[in-house]
């Protein structure tokens, strides 16, 4: 899981049976003490693997939306909730956004966010995220070794990486490169292996930049199934995703698009390994 704190933006991403939405109340309280007012909120997630194990308020998307509606201030009056489907019923993308008038006006942001969810990781690659039994290394040292061994450190060589390996397996990293973050989380257990990658980019970046990043990510994990959500206010970045991933042997199986008042377009694509 990861937390990013900017002067006027906070991003928190958690897995497992965490109760993420319960952070809203305390965050609003502390921000208010600093003289800051909430102007937009975006909540996203994929489909839970074990939905019945999720605690309140994550028992269903409907419940999550109700919780958000009840706990966000009334100035965030432009609200939308959507479940974006894919051909695989187990892979849907859930999006809730809320914003005030100010944020809608200023939405012509050049930045985009890419959220990648990968399942059925290559077994050899996934095994690199297990710590050898009894090696006694702490999470920081073991994390650095995994970053190097797996090639994660090469995804953005210019980034400062903060990494951590969990015992007996699992890995998390945050990359920071000037004002941009990236993050990777891995749970490598066979049978339900999973890895996520997320980064931000600008529509003014070189067209090849995000393509090169996605290629490296796919090569690190070699997933059988992958979903990519692209959120972009003013430009269609999503076409670069397919162009990057399909030459690596993955085929786009579905693509859904929706518009949100404060975020612009959200494009949700799913890919599976091309049958030989």
């Amino acid at each position, binding site marked *: 899981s990861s937390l990013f704190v900017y002067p006027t933006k906070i991003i*928190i991403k958690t897995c497992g049976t965490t109760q993420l939405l319960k952070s809203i109340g305390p965050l609003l309280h502390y921000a208010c003490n600093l003289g800051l007012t909430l102007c937009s909120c975006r909540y996203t997630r994929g489909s839970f693997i*074990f939905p019945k194990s999720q605690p309140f308020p994550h028992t269903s998307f409907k419940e999550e939306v109700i919780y958000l509606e009840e706990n966000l201030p009334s100035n965030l009056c432009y609200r939308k909730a959507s479940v974006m489907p894919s051909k695989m019923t187990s892979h849907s993308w859930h999006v809730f956004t809320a914003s005030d008038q100010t944020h809608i006006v200023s939405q012509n942001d050049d930045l985009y966010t890419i959220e990648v969810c990968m399942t059925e990781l290559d077994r050899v690659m996934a095994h690199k995220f297990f710590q050898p039994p009894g090696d006694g290394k702490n999470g920081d040292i073991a994390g650095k070794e995994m970053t190097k061994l797996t090639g994660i450190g090469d995804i953005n060589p210019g980034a400062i990486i*903060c990494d951590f390996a969990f015992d007996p397996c699992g890995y998390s990293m945050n990359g920071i490169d000037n004002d941009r973050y990236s993050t990777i989380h891995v749970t490598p257990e066979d049978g339900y292996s999973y890895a996520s990658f997320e980064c931000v980019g600008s529509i003014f970046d070189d067209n090849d930049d995000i393509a090169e990043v996605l290629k490296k990510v796919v090569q690190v994990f070699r997933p059988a199934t992958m979903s990519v959500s692209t959120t972009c206010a003013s430009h269609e970045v999503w076409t670069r995703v397919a162009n990057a991933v399909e030459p690596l042997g993955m085929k786009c199986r579905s693509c859904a698009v929706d518009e949100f008042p404060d975020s612009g377009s959200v494009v949700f694509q799913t890919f599976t390994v091309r049958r030989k």
Partner: protein
Amino acid sequence: MAVSGFEGFEKRLELHFFGDDPVVDNMGLRLLDFESLVKVLNAVQCTVVSAVGNHYFDAYVLSE
């Protein structure tokens, strides 16, 4: 639920704020002390395991 309590797919929340004080806007939420962040994370049921920051923002790796 799997034996390990595994649930890979993350939940992600992004919040944007604005303020009238340019001094606060410069550092804003980064002025939150670590104790306050811990209280936020307690509500989520996470803890900080590693951290790094630069001129622009702070990044924390969390448990779970």
